[in-house]
């Protein structure tokens, strides 16, 4: 075992998850790698009250896109729609292509760098997906911003130092 491995294992503040990289949230407010899928929510370009729920599964790369009221996306034909393409683009910005490709077990080559490269490396077709669950996860995500600020110290957060890796 080398010294770096030992230091990592014996550090109380070893960095485990790289922080998300900053990106524009207006078009795709929510992206996550969870439940075996790249999934997220894409704002409709025409109706401010409508959002699309888009997802790509790691197993088999099946994809889907529908509104939050479970109506299928009109743009979804034999290929991923513009919402899925936007989801892939923003996921690559937020996590970096390596992490997304690893999660989706997608075989991208070393030159791949964009959401389009990621989509090109996928092999699946259209498949049903639990849009309602993804949408409720997005709503839960938003509720964090509704929680009040506290001025009582949280000593536990000393285990979570802020880092500069986001820059």
């Amino acid at each position, binding site marked *: 075992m080398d010294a770096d*491995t030992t*230091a*990592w*294992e*014996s*550090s*109380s*503040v*070893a*960095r*485990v*998850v790289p*922080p*998300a*990289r*900053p*990106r*524009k*949230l*207006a078009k795709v*407010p929510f*992206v996550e*790698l*969870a*439940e*075996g899928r790249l999934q997220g929510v894409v*704002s409709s370009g025409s109706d*401010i*009250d409508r959002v699309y729920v888009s997802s790509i599964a790691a197993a088999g790369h099946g994809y889907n896109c529908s509104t*939050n009221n479970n109506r299928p996306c009109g743009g979804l034909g034999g290929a991923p729609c513009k919402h899925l393409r936007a989801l892939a683009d923003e996921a690559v910005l*937020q996590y970096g292509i390596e992490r997304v490709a690893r999660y989706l077990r997608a075989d991208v080559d070393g030159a791949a760098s964009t959401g389009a490269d990621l989509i090109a490396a996928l092999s699946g077709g259209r498949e049903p997906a639990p849009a309602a669950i993804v949408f409720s996860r*997005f*709503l*839960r*995500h*938003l*509720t*964090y*911003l*509704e*929680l*009040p*600020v*506290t*001025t*009582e*110290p*949280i*000593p*536990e*957060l*000393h*285990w*979570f*130092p*802020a*880092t*500069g890796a*986001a*820059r």
Partner: protein
Amino acid sequence: MLATPLKELLDQAPDGLPEAFAVVGGFDDALVHGLARLGEERAAALSALAGAVAATPLGERAADAAAKAAAGSVTDDDLAVLAGARAALLGAAHDALLDSLDTALGRTRAPLEPAAAAPPAADPFAGARSWLRELAIAGWRGVDHDLVAAAGQTIEALLDEPRLRRQAALLDGLAAELRACCPVAAMPRPPVRRWADLWTRALLFARPGAAPGIGEDVPSVSGRLFVLGVDVHEHATAVQVQAHGVLEPAGGEPPRLVRTSVAAAKVDTIVGPALWRLFGGYPVLLGALAGRHALEVTGLPLLASGDLIWHDDRAVAGEPFDPFAVARIRLAGALAPAVPALDRHPVRIAEPVLAEDYTIERGERPALRLGEARLEFDLDRLPSCGPLTPELVAASTACIGLVRWDAGRWLLQPLAVAATVKRKPVVAHGGEWATGPTDPKVVKAEARSGDAVAVLRERAGRLLRR
């Protein structure tokens, strides 16, 4: 910080420290593989942990809990006792380390007053305890998506209760790391010490009354607060800004080292300078951080731990000041606070210091050299919400920082630096961007990505209340 005592601190580890960490390491290894698969060697590690606290009031219970774990019939209470034994060992390590640091800095620390017995409280933690038990039984190697997802409802319920924010933030941070590493069995090496720390902490605080909150009897103080630097803590769904400073109490009492904190819940896409926008309700505090002026405070509760409970409406902006000058005059004589019993862990050591007249040793791990002493900078702790960079630190000639200890070594976390860049003197502070970034490049990048907080609040307003 003076060269000779610093050299002594760096050269001489407290007696018994490696032995204590070896015992803790044995327990942590048991958590990697899970209590369901202990085997002889790891069962012996649990006995060794119990043996290490044999002379304490925990002794008999710990021996019993280790035996029951080895027999495969561990209860929640047994786990809590083992967690308590691990915490007690690290508490002793903390005390020894902090004591040698105080000696090196010539710092006087207030004695710890015994805590009042916590009033009986409700127990909303059954779900948390049962999840933590499942984790211990499965071991980190056995953690999969389903086991992580099982914590979801428990964490959601804790988050809904503002008084349980500490427990919620801790469990949420641990669950997010486990989720990102699933399945952990495929990970080359898990962060063994870290996850055992978080598990132990979570279990000890998943009990009624463990974190009773701020009582009525907390004394309040008035006076002048000089913030010397800002420490930022962050995971995907929480951020805490902790300002370290010197309080000159009204009425001429001696100055004290204090901290004051603001913490917000957030989401992973709010990062960098945008973090400050979560604290828009604290304009007086943020203005002082950005503008480097003193704060005149009136009637703020001050905990024995040195935590000043911030109320923005009980503070007004005072005169601008030079933090380096104040640190030079005030840090040496200020009274340091006691560390509450349950917070005694090496990770909590964060002592504000001023270092100057040093030379920089560049390389993979940059350090400052003061006489014979070589103290490494902790450059992983430069937050993205401020202007400090590794380059600035490497060009620095003076530094206000926090002395920390991790993985067997002392480190200096820079909070503010005075440096020479292109032959010109510059000063950079971690809180400089509290009211918005001042670096034109960062302003431009912010404008390009838009206001993340505003976008998500708009979405929340439109979608959540339907």
